């Protein structure tokens, strides 16, 4: 407090100062600031997360290149050229060539196509099976839940990659058998998440309310439960893409990947391993792309999780 102010306070104050004024506060306005919808709020949080947006941009570039990359190179990805084997990157071959003289630039982006397709398809399959199974478990509960839960526990006991390997050994390897192999146990995590979410939501007031108003079982499931479980589901999908991409690369490393001349990043890495010390670009481009893509998916997935659940952001 300043001395001057104190003086005024202790001394006489002009009566004009004590004139009544209008009360400012009106009836309390609640929630004026909350004009954004939940979706906008999530998008806002995601957009302001630079790290996650960086991941998203990187993914966009990789996806665009996967589509147009093989087209803009003057060489296709499968023609061998024994006069130009193991060429270093140059203006002619931007990423160099492999041991059969195939253009690494085309192959890298063709590999992106295959790896991304496998990753997205496997994530999609996990999503469909997982939501269905989780929905059944969570919604019906009781015996059905018990049985399916046991069943998934038994399946879950087997390491994911071992199942993928086993099934690939049996079915042979092309892109779609690999996706099939991955989705045999890949859905379990998703189903548990959905199941948990539904169990949690099932007894909440608004679901009880709509039930008491006579809404049918399936209607409730679609109308309330799925939208509310959307956050964890989307995040799980976003994070299961990189693990599927990695699994495909891993299979290729074991020689169970897609067959020549098609090439995924894993196949290219495996091909390069024997000679990469002499021709490092043969490893660098597919391995680098694989790492960058996995990284981008992971940080984007983390950003999504933070956007959906700001409480978890620390």
């Amino acid at each position, binding site marked *: 407090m300043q001395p001057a102010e104190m003086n005024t306070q202790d001394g006489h104050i002009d009566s004009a100062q004590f004139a009544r004024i209008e009360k400012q506060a009106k009836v309390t306005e609640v929630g004026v600031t909350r004009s954004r919808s939940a979706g906008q709020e999530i998008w806002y949080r995601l957009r302001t997360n630079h790290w996650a947006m960086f991941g998203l941009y990187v993914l966009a570039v990789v996806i665009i290149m996967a589509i147009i990359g093989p087209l803009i190179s003057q060489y296709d990805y499968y023609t061998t050229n024994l006069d130009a084997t193991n060429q270093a990157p140059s203006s002619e071959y931007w990423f160099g060539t492999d041991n059969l003289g195939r253009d690494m630039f085309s192959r890298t982006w063709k590999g992106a196509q295959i790896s991304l397709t496998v990753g997205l398809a496997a994530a999609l399959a996990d999503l469909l099976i997982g939501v269905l199974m989780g929905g059944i478990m969570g919604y019906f509960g009781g015996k059905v839940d018990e049985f399916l839960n*046991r069943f998934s*526990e*038994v399946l879950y*006991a*087997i*390491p*994911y*990659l*071992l199942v993928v*390997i*086993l*099934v690939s*050994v*049996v079915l042979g390897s092309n892109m779609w058998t690999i996706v099939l192999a991955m989705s045999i146990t890949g859905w379990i*995590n998703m189903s*548990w*998440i959905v199941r*948990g979410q539904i*169990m949690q939501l099932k007894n909440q007031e608004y679901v009880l309310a709509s039930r008491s108003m006579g809404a049918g079982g399936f209607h409730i499931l679609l109308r309330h439960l799925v939208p509310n479980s959307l956050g964890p589901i989307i995040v799980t999908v976003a994070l299961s893409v*990189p693990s599927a991409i*990695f699994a495909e*690369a*891993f299979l290729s*490393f*074991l*020689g*169970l990947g897609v067959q020549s001349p098609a090439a995924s990043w894993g196949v290219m*890495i495996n091909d390069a*391993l024997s000679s*990469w*010390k002499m021709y490092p670009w043969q*490893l660098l481009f597919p*391995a680098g792309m*694989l*790492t*960058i893509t*996995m*990284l981008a998916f*992971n*940080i984007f997935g*983390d950003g999504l999780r933070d956007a959906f659940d700001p409480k*978890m952001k*620390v």
Partner: protein
Amino acid sequence: MIRFLLRKTVNIVLSLFVLATATFFLMKAIPGDPFMQEKNVPDVVRQNLIKFYGFDKPMWEQYLVYLNNLIHLDLGMSMRQQYQSVSDIIARSFTYSLQLGLVAIVVSIIVGIAVGLIAALYHRKLIDKLAMLFATLGIAVPNFVLGTIIQYYFANKFRFFDVAGLNDPSDFVLPTIALSVLPIAFIARLTRSTMLEVLSADYIRTAKAKGIGSLTILIRHALRNGLLPVVSYVGPMTANIITGSVVVESIFGIAGLGKFFTMSVSNRDYTLIMGITLFYAAILMFARFLTDIAYALIDPRIKMMKKGGGGHAAG
């Protein structure tokens, strides 16, 4: 407690049985017999081989024989490694894998917790950001790429370590790094996020209000609660290390289980594939079993009498 253990054990046996059955029929579903690929085998020899492996008998009989053998821990003869039983191969190679795996697990837990803890304590500081960058990279870099690169730089080029084998302690360094980076990254992230949550918990404030020193609070109050999720990660980590070892052992030429598994896959040694798969699954289930017990011992809120239901640790 006993009922809990019993239920878990039954689950394990059941899972193994289902897996054994599934692998058996999967292998039988492969068209042709396993010796078709060998072109210059005379017909007589081939018939003898088929007889030796019992492939001429009806399917159900083969299955029963297989199950019976399994109960006696007899996983059959390898189809490619001459005169060796699958059990022998596993027993021999597992010693290497076990050593490496245990070292990797211990290193992962210690380093992972340390990194996560430091990141949490220096939240939002540079060191936190660096640790999280490392953790994100660790999850993204495929272990076979990492293994190859560190082998080249540290063994081939600068000769700090032997390129291959697992003969003296220094041989553990590179394979352990290649195996541990992923679990370290996971544990560091997990530790960091739970520690941040725990450190801002009300009971930590209570402890402060009691006049407990900050180091004691960290050790006595925060760590125990903050590390619970790490305990539940031990199961998935074992799975990671098993699959990681498949790659790492091949790269570093370690005659462990992983290397035989890679070999059996590439030369279609079906009995060996089946045997090792079952063995891996058994280890993994055992690890999960230990995790469940540890978790129940550490967290008083878990009632072991009650049915597990509800919360599955995702991951």
